[in-house]
């Protein structure tokens, strides 16, 4: 092997130090967490009722929220990217709002609108008997509210950059708009769509504020992993650590999975 040559300029000391502090800020809590994890009891900790319930609720609600975000978000992204209509900017701003809004505020808004006495919640209850707050469905709604913007923005970006000429070609061959959307447009943006779905799912998995405000914290019904971690910190630190480890592992896996598809391409 030949000696490695220095082919880059030396990193300025100030930048190096600050960057290292940045890394430390993120890494130290993670290391602290890993050090404290009771590895030997992990199996039994993770198989307790509280943890299993929270895992189940989290899995169901995050997957359902990702699915719902996709079902509603993809057409929404298409509309924003492909149609010029009055108030498009306002719609886009409104759709992205949950990304910057404190989740608690989002949850409160959901409560006022869809709660038992809410503007939509009350007639919904009267007409169909469906009550969203403090139910699994409520968790899913809260998760979707917070997660969908990630999908919409990712997919809209991809749609805006995709080649319209191919769609024109499909139209000239006799395809309807819906068929073009389904068999030409969607396959062309598949990588971004996948990234959007995973991002939405990950955001739903980590949701806390909107969920606890709108759907409460009922074990076995609405208590997701983040809620269970928060509660366990009070009475069962080891369980909190074990669940935290699960969340860290999942999040890390998601980021690694997205590495090529999403952030390198930006």
């Amino acid at each position: 092997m030949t000696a490695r040559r220095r082919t880059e300029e030396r990193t300025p000391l100030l930048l190096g130090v600050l960057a290292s502090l940045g890394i430390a800020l993120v890494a130290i809590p993670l290391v602290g967490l890993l050090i404290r994890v009771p590895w030997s009891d992990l199996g039994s900790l993770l198989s307790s009722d509280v943890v299993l319930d929270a895992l189940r609720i989290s899995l169901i609600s995050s997957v359902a929220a990702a699915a719902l975000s996709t079902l509603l978000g993809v057409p929404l992204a298409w509309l924003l990217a492909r149609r010029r209509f009055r108030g498009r900017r306002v719609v886009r701003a409104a759709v992205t709002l949950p990304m910057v809004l404190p989740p608690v505020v989002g949850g409160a808004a959901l409560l006022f609108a869809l709660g038992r006495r809410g503007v939509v919640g009350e007639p919904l209850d009267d007409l169909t008997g469906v009550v969203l707050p403090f139910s699994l469905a409520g968790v899913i709604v809260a998760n979707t509210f917070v997660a969908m913007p990630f999908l919409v923005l990712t997919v809209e970006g991809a749609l805006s950059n995709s080649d319209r000429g191919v769609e024109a070609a499909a139209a000239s061959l006799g395809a309807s708009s819906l068929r073009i959307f389904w068999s030409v447009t969607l396959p062309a943006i598949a990588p971004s769509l996948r990234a959007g779905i995973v991002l939405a799912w990950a955001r739903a998995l980590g949701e806390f504020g909107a969920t606890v405000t709108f759907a409460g914290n009922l074990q076995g019904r609405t208590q997701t992993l983040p809620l269970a971690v928060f509660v366990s910190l009070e009475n069962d630190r080891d369980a909190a650590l074990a669940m935290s480890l699960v969340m860290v592992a999942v999040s890390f896996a998601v980021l690694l999975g997205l590495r090529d598809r999403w952030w390198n391409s930006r």
Partner: protein
Amino acid sequence: MTASEQSRQLDASIRVSRGDFELEVELEVVGQQTVVLLGPNGAGKSTVVDALAGVCPIDAGRIVVDDVVVDEPATATFVPTRLRGLGIVFQQYRLFGQMSVLDNVAFGPSAQGARRATARRRAAAVLELLGAAELASRSPRDLSGGQAQRVAIARALAVEPRLLVFDEPLAALDVEVRADLRRALVDISADTGALVITHDPTEAFLLADQIVVVEGGRVTQRGDSEAIRTRPATPYVAALTGTNLLRGAAHTGVITLGRGLTLHAADTHTVGPVVVTIDPVAVALHRAEPNTSARNKWSSAVVAVEALGERVRVVLGEPFELVADVTPAAVEALDLRPGVTVWASVKATELQVRPASN
């Protein structure tokens, strides 16, 4: 078939205003005719394609495809792209990258209601006709330019279009593709006309039954290749027709043009029907029989002399029409004017010989 029996594949009178740009073009394609719309960049060619495809509604006029009015502002008629019965071979081809070649070609029939298996059978048949059967399972991303072109043509033909539109084919439609295309057209339907939009005069002269020249949004000349080539109506046409084009039969470097006339070419490999092109600059003119090494020399009558910027174009008549570009000084020295007989010479190496399609 006589002209009166042939259907009109396209009858278009297109008027579009875009800011200061006014486009006004009349186009007609009859039967299996190939019409070439030729013009420089910015002449309005792509607007014509957009208007035909239904991407850009016309402001006035009428577009009729195979006796069906597809766009007529006066009667508020507008048929969307997908119902126009056009097979468009797009610039850059625009193949569907996520589908196999076979599925690309099957897309049209399938979009028009054919069942999946039927559409795929049909696609396979059309690919076969275009000599691209072996590409069926490939991804469009792995195709060469020429292969992509065949696939794009197959995809357009699979919907049995009433008119085939080529928008600036990137790879020139070579002799083989044209032969395959013609065979495919015969097999698929008798009356598919073709409209080729291009800025490449060579392409135009090789393909066209009719050439429509468009400049600055207006038609400046229309006619067959011969008419355009020998009687250019505008400086643009004159400049772009700077190529002599002869047809003949080649055999070991000798090209027989008919009526016993022969030319010598450096290319001794091409045999059979050929198209010969000669740059007008390569044609030398002399007052008397020249003592030159050039292998082709003959005497001919000057038909016309036209100034073309810093050069002068001399049109020669019998025994065959040919244009020569010379300097104004040569015109004076040789006393070139219509009616004068001169000697022309062309080196064998200046003859570009290409196989003709039939």
